[in-house]
Structure formats: structure tokens, C-alpha cells
């Protein structure tokens, strides 16, 4: 389990006040979870991953992986592979050269898997990485990371540059690792759509803090949209007792978003003899919008 406790990270620039990238961030990420983090540029996603990888040392607070501190701790770091947004490969190297390097750095590096994944992704391990496109380089990095057989795998906006087919392939490998090896994966992205169908848990970072995090399944089921109509005139007060987050009415038809038990809500409204009653699921983005608004944030402002 990853435990971040009151983590603060500051960047110092000569002549300027320190920039606080993470401010007292706390979270717990269980083993075998695919954890998604979304946030705008500068929200602290990459900084958080670098802290988890032991690249940065927090100004205050602590980060542990399975109760081990990460900073300068080879025992913890040997179980982590971090694939950054800006990839690094040895100059003039091929995937094979990089695999040799990863083998030297990560004792559990699996050559069989490396070759299989290279074949699956149709990448030539002997080709110079400089000849690869941006997406191919991301695939190469993902292959190298996955072949290192880590217990914790961190992707920093790695999927953003992949085409849908390759993205799907990588996700399949990740799912298998999660199922078979209980790997914990953290994926960051600007886009909620990227993470919607992948992650078990989602967190939204804003100005160095997690302002919202939840189980994706809970998110999807906790909010829902109701569209209903009544023969006689009515107002919002008619639905008193329901936990309505958003309410709109046009004539005799009203639409509202509410949190609560779906079946109980349906029974409650049906008891009012509506002319029309549709209970619709929300997209994850809609759920986020309403959850943020409930917290007093404007979701669009946060992700724009």
C-alpha cells in the first residue's frame, strides 16, 4: 500500500518565493489498485509521482510503500517503475540496449516478457530509438517498464500519446499484471476519458492537493440523473427529502441530479404518479462536475 501523509513539496528558485507544488497531500492507495489522477497542468500530478518514485524528497510529510520509506531506499525503489512524461533513453540506443540497462538496474527484469511484448507491439528491439515516433517511444518505455515486473507502476501521462489500439494493448497488460501479480498502477492524465474505463479509483488534484478521490464504481453509481414530468404544476420543493445536487425545470418537465439509493429514489418518485420518469446513468465527467460543484469548485476551471 502506498501511504502519503501530509506531503508538501516546494521548489526553490533563486530570488523568488518557493513554489508549493504539493501542499499537505495525503492519500492511501491499496495494493492491486489502478489509481487514476487527473488535474490541470501544474496541479502536482508529476511531482506526486516523482515523490512516489524517490526522485524528489518531500519538504515535509512522509511517503511509504508497504511501510517502507521510498527516498534513497533501494528496497522500495526496486519494486517501482516510473515512466515519466518526458522519456529518457540512452543516446543512440535501441530497445535491446535499454533492456540490458534495465536488467542491470532491476533484478526482476524479465527478458521473455520483453520479447513477447515487443512482438505484440510490433516494435523492433534492435532499431535505434531515435527512429521511433513519439507514440512508439512511449510504447517502448511501457514495454521496458512492464518487463521490469514491478509491484508499483507509475505512468505519467503515458497514455496521452498512444493511439487507441496501443492504448488498449497496454491497458490489457496492466490489467493482467493487476490480476496476476497484484500490481499497483498509478496513471496520471489531463483527460478524464483516458481514465474512465481503466481505473479503480480516481483522484482529482488541484493546486497541490487532492480535492476529491473516490472509487470509480461508487462514483458512477452514487449519482444519477432523473428526468420526470407531472400533470399538475410543481416546484423543486415537491422533491423535498431527496439529496438533489442540481435541478432544472422546463415547464412540466424537470431534470435533476441526485445522490442516493437508486431504487429507493425511483420508488419515492413513482409514488407521486409522474407522467414520465427516466433514471439515467451519468458519465464520469458529469459525476465529477457535480461532485466538484458540491464541494464548491468549478470542475471546468480545474481541468482547463
Amino acid at each position, binding site marked *: 500500500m502506498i501511504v502519503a501523509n501530509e506531503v508538501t513539496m516546494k521548489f*526553490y528558485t*533563486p*530570488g523568488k518565493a518557493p513554489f508549493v507544488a504539493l501542499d499537505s497531500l495525503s492519500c492511501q492507495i491499496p495494493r492491486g489498485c489502478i489509481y487514476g489522477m487527473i488535474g490541470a497542468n501544474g496541479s502536482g500530478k508529476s511531482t506526486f509521482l516523482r515523490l512516489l518514485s524517490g526522485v524528489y524528497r518531500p519538504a515535509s510529510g512522509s511517503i511509504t510503500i508497504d511501510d517502507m520509506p521510498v527516498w534513497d531506499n*533501494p*528496497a522500495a*525503489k526496486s519494486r*517501482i517503475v516510473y515512466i515519466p512524461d518526458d*522519456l*529518457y533513453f540512452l543516446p543512440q540506443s535501441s530497445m535491446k540496449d535499454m533492456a540490458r540497462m534495465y536488467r542491470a538496474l532491476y533484478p526482476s527484469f524479465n527478458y521473455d516478457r520483453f520479447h513477447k511484448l515487443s512482438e505484440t507491439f510490433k516494435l523492433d528491439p534492435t532499431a535505434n530509438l531515435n527512429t521511433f515516433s513519439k507514440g512508439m517511444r512511449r510504447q517502448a518505455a511501457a514495454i521496458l517498464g512492464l518487463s521490469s515486473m514491478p509491484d508499483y507502476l507509475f505512468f505519467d501521462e503515458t497514455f496521452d500519446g498512444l493511439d487507441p489500439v496501443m492504448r488498449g494493448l497496454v491497458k490489457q497488460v496492466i490489467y493482467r499484471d493487476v490480476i496476476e501479480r497484484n500490481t499497483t498502477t498509478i496513471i496520471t492524465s489531463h483527460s478524464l476519458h483516458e481514465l474512465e474505463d481503466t481505473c479503480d479509483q480516481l483522484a482529482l488534484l488541484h493546486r497541490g492537493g487532492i480535492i476529491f478521490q473516490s472509487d470509480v464504481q461508487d462514483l458512477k453509481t452514487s449519482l444519477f440523473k432523473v428526468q420526470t414530468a407531472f400533470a399538475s404544476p410543481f416546484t423543486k420543493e415537491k422533491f423535498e427529502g431527496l439529496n438533489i445536487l442540481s435541478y432544472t425545470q422546463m415547464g412540466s418537465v424537470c431534470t435533476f441530479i441526485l445522490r442516493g439509493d437508486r431504487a429507493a429514489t425511483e420508488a419515492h418518485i413513482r409514488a407521486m404518479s409522474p407522467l414520465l420518469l427516466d433514471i439515467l446513468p451519468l458519465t464520469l465527467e458529469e459525476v465529477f462536475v457535480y461532485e466538484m460543484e458540491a464541494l464548491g469548485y468549478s470542475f471546468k476551471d480545474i481541468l482547463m
Partner: protein
Amino acid sequence: MKNKIFDFRLYLQGLGRLRVIGIALAILCLTVSILVPTVRWLDGPGPNYQVEYPLDGDELVLEGSAQTWHDFDGLTENGKWEATWVQEAISDEVTIIPVLVASYLSPVLMLMMFSFLNKRKESDFYHAIPFTRGCVYTSFVAAVLTWVWGVLILSSLSAALVWALCPYVTFSFGGLIGKMLLACLNAALLSAFAAVAVSLTGTSSTAIITSLLVTWIWRIVMLFTLLCLECVLFLTPVDTIWGGYFSLEFWLPVTLITGGNRPVVIIYAVLVTLAMFALGGVLYSKRRSELAGRSVPGRFVHNLLRCMMTLPIALLLIYQIIDGNDFTTILIIFVCMLLVFYLYELLTTKSARRMFRATPWLGAVVGVCVVFFGIILLSGYVEEHERTDADRIQSVEIMNVGNVVSDSVVINSYEMSQIGPTDDADIIATVADAWERTQTNPRGAGALYGKRLVVHMKLKGGRRIIRELNFPWEDYYSMMGELKENANPQPIPSDEMIKKLQISPYSMYNTTKNIRVSGEWQTRLMQAMRTDYANMTQEQRKGLIDYSGREMLRFYITTEINGKTAMYSYSIQESMPNTIRLLYEIYGLPTYGRAKAAKSLIQSWGQDQRNTITIVSENGHHQQNRLATSNEKDLNQVKNILLKAIDRAQNESQEGYGVLIYINGWEEDIGIPAMIIVPARLYASEWKIIDELLFSK
């Protein structure tokens, strides 16, 4: 995974990172290593040879340049002397050229190895790998040293191999190995400085600047401290006291290779290297990955580096002020100081506004300089106002390593080295007088006023001070006479005392330089010295140790007294016929055909029209020049060649001194060349005296 200090796989990765530059360096050094001796080989025999002659089981070695008239084909003509080898001695510096290249390029390798620290993505990668930072640091540093040392050793041994195969030369394998090891240490030292710089900074340019600053700043401060102290301290022999540590010899890493092989220098270098590597390791472990791409970790370090950049020029400015230099020079240096200060800021921040915001830190530089200036002036004030009363002094020791020669006292350097501290009241009073006198008139020239001596004084409070004082001649000789009473006179050392005996003729071109004498020859020579000394007058004995600079030959005996090395230095003069005869016998060892020798001499010395060459043969004597060569028959009958030549080594415009070179018909068909430097009074009109003196047997 355990926390390791060093990881072999990471080390191999480090080697791989440097393979391009490492291989390039190896090719460069190997090429030079092989090329230099190969070219020398292709050149054939050179003009400088070293000759070794076996002599009744002893070895006599002529070092340095052999006489140009040596015709080595004739060396074994008479079968009496046989050269075991005739080769040019290659200096260690020449054999080690490629090593120098590799040694001084070592910081480049260190900067390249840790260049990942200057790029964000590379820095993140290497900080994310599952090794402690200390492990990464030591493994990569080991990789750098492996490349540098590997190239050093490979190129040195390659050079040694080719030099060894070259038929015309000889070199000291031990010397080469020694130089190689020093070069390895030098490379490590430079790498260590670079390691500190790369661990501290985040860009290549600041890493290079910091590397240079870390390497040189301490020495620059010491140099200016020494220079400034020398300006204000008139009685304190600054150079004698601190010069050893402030000197170029300690100016690492320059002198590690160019001769600074004293154990203390090597130990110092090793300690500095270890300290720098340790400091680099600590800085690397504390380093923040986010520093990559930024010049320095914080404002303080940034300001510190800028101040360090400016400090050498600021100290130069202070030195110029203390030295009383003209206003224009001082103003130019001041402007240079400002330029360096602000340009550094402009280049690193690329902001003109920030450039001027740095001005308060200029105050820090000025503050350091003011403190420095104050300490220097205070030192001068303290020295100038020190009490010089004799009752303060507990004991004194006169430091004088030379000979003392006067009508009243004669002390050689051996005797001087025996004279230790004394609490003699008269001597202390003399020293106190000199102290007072020198303090009152510190610029009184020692040579005009009397003798300037370094005196170690122990004061009654236990404090020890060293002062350089002016003594009137009368006081000086009187004091030295009293001191000599404590010495054990030993004008000619016993055989047991001698550690090394070396003969050095008057240095001049075309001469054989030094000869080391040992074994039977040493015994014979010392015996001859003792015999001559016994027959000398007191005046002549004074002349024996009085260095006039115009003696025929000098020879040096190194001996040891109480663990300290002391040296006898004798001028060989005409009042020592036995010694001279033996010396010329030694010098005359290279034997060859008389005619060849004569021809060679005429060719060699006749080039200068101002030289006069007189051939003395059975048929009388006649002047000879280079163009009018005598016939072979005449030359075979040469008894002496008398050469009146100009002392070109000293001063071409003065013809008051010259050389007498003769080939004496010692035995049939064997000429024995020799050469002496003679004062004008001897060669101008008294050739015969010399001739009789030397060959009267």
C-alpha cells in the same frame, strides 16, 4: 535490495556511458604514446647520449649530454675501455606525454559522466533507479577513474614498450612508473574537484566554472596572502616560513606531474583527493533532482559562486594597493572586478535587472577584502612594533646553509649544519642588536650593510619566531666564530660519511655535465683530496669552499648529519694537483683515436671565429682553425690541443674567461680529452703552468 556503497552493474553502466569519449581518449593517448618513440626511433641516434663504463667492478656514469666530439665508433679501438651501452637518456617527462593528456582530461570525463544531472529527464531517471545516491555516485566515480587510469596505464606501458625497443635511447622504467602513478593521482584529484562541482550545480557551464573555482580558489587566496605579506613584513622571511606550502609545488594539481613528488606533496594530494571525493559524495546525496537545468541549488550558492569568481581579482586589487602600484593599474583591475561580478550574473540569470540587484553581494566581496587588507596591515604593524630586547630571547638558532669564509673564520656547510640553537648571552645580544637595527631600518640592504640571516628565536614565554635580520660584517663573523666552537670541524668528510659524490664541471655547452663517482674511484678521489688538503695553506683552504663561480670544477658530496642532509661543495683549484689529475683521469675516460678527437674538437670549437685553437704536437705548435684542417699525420702526433674559447654560456661579450681543452698524448695512440675552465690569468700567458701542473708526471 540491500543498501550498497558500490554496485558492479551500475559501474558497468557507467563504463558504458563513457565508452565514446573513453575510446577516443584511449586512441588519442595510444597514438601519441607510440608515435613519439617511433619518430625518435626513425630519427636515428640523437646528439645527447648517456654513457656507462664498467671500471674494475665499479660503475662510472656520465650523465647528461656527452661531448659532441665523441665518436662512438672509436670507443673500443684500443680495447681498454668498453662502453656497455651508448644511448640517449629520455626524460620521464617525454615518456609520459600521453599520460599528461589523459590526466588533464579526467575532469572532462567526470563532467560527462554526471552530465545527466543537468537534464531533467535524465536526472529523474537516475534518481529513480533502485540504488542509493551514494551507490550511484561511487559506482560512476569508479567508472570515470577506471577509464582515466586505464588509459593512463595503457598508454604509459605502450610508450614504455616502444621506448624499450628503440635502440638509441634509454629511459627509466621506474621513473615512468612513478610519473604514471603521479599522473593517476593527479587525474583522481582533478576528477574529485569536478565531482564536487557537478554535484553542486545544475548546468554544464556552472559545473565547469565551479570546477575551476574549487580547484584554484584556495591556492589563489594563498598566493595573494603570501604576496601581500611579503609586501608588509620586512623582517619575517615569509617565503621561508610559508613558501613551502604556498609555493607552486603545493599548487595542486599542476606540480604533481611536473616534479612535485615529495612525500608531503603526495600525501597532501591524496588527502585533498579523498576529501573532495567525500564532499562530492555528500553533495550528491543531498542534491535535489529538480536542480537539473538550473545553475545552482539556491540563491546563497549562486551568490557565493559569484563572489568566489570575483574574489581573485579583488585580492589582486588589494595586492596592487599594498604594493603601491599606480592608480591606473588599480583602476583597471577594479573595473575588471566589476565586469566579472556583473557579467557572471548576467550570463547565469540572463536578466539585466537581476544583474544590478546582485550589487549588495559586491559588498560582501569588498568586506572580505577589507578584512584581508586589515589583517595584512595589522601583521605589518605588529612586526614593526615588536619589542626587541635581548632579555625576551631564550635561545637563537642561526639558519645558514652556506659556507662562511673570512680572514677570521672558515666554516663549511657541513659544519654549519651542526650548529644548533644556542643560549649564549653574547650571541643573543648580537641577535637582539641586529633585530633592533633591522626593525629601525628594515630596508637596509643586507649585502651592503652586512649579512642578512634568518634567525629562529625562542622567546622566554615559549613563543617561537623567525626573523630575517641584518648583521654588520663584524658582528656576523664574530658570531659565526663563536658558533663554530660548538661544531665538530670536518673539512673533508670520511668515506663513511659520504652518501653520494658528484662532480660537476663548469656548466657550458659541449661539456659533460655531471659524473657520479663511487666505489674505488670515490676512495681514490677522497684520498687525493685529503693529501692535497694537508699540503694546502690556510688561504688555499678558504678557497676550497669559497664559491667564486669561476672555478675549474666543483664537486659535491652529499652526506647526512643527524638525519639531515648536508652537502659539501668544493672548488677544485690548481693547488690540488692530485685531485685534479684524478678528476681528469675520470673525465678522460672516453678514449678514441687522437686524430679523430682532434678533428672533432677543431670542427666543434672552430665554428666560432673568436676562438683560438692551438695544436701542440711533436713538431711544435701552430694555430688551427676549422677551415685549415691539419693533415692526418699531424693530428696523429698531437700532444695537446689548446683552446682559448669564449665563455658563451655566461656572456658572449666578455672574453675574460675561457676553456682550455687538451688532448694529452698519455699513451701511444690513445688521446685523453679533458676540459677545464680557466680564469684569464691562467690561459692568457701561463699555458705552460697548466700543462706542467697537469702532466708533470
